[in-house]
């Protein structure tokens, strides 16, 4: 299934891209699973998605936990803890 993945702030800069259209491999069906999948690319991906890095996620613009499921066509975003206000 195909999803759009967005990256913001420090993640966007470190990964050198704001977005990516991605075909998920079979077996990746949650936000946590997608994070593991991206970390496995190695290099900067391994740093950005290291288990001890605080990374937040949203699916279709709603903040979610790692157990949240992903469906075809979803917009999944990864970003650091927010610092507005």
């Amino acid at each position, binding site marked *: 299934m195909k999803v759009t993945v*967005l990256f*913001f*702030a*420090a993640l966007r800069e470190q990964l050198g891209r704001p977005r990516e259209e991605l075909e998920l491999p079979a077996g990746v069906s949650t936000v946590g699973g997608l994070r593991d999948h991206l970390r496995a690319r190695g290099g900067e991906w391994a740093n950005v998605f290291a288990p001890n890095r*605080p990374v937040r996620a*949203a699916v279709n*613009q*709603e*903040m979610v936990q790692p157990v949240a499921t992903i469906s075809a066509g979803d917009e999944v*975003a990864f*970003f*650091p*803890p*927010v*610092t*507005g*206000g």
Partner: protein
Amino acid sequence: MKVAIQREDFDLGAEVRAISRSPKIGAVASFVGLVRDVRMTLEHYPGMTENAIRQIVDQAAARWQVLDCTVIHRYGELQPNDQIVLVAVASAHRGDAFAACEFIMDYLKTQAPFWKKEHRTGGATWVEARTADDEAADRWEK
């Protein structure tokens, strides 16, 4: 209820007057956040930002009497002393206006997708989230 995410500055007086017109309104509480001492760039997640703030305003309106409300948050390049954020809540009495205003601000700090990057001599760094902000939002759960 008005939620605006914009580059432009805002006028506190005009915004407060705009939500003070009904004769039912006896109190308007407002908060303005300013850039402290360093130039910064604010990034946000267009679309999600507006939705996240609207949900926070809805939660406040479910807990307190909110007759009208305006939230404005700026993004882009900001200089020291610039206004960043406005939360203004209109109610019949001050208790609801104060509480709803503080609640919206506390949740905005931890739930609205904004990120600050500070530009100092020596380089630019992303601001780290503060646990004190999480604690400020958490206390409303109790």
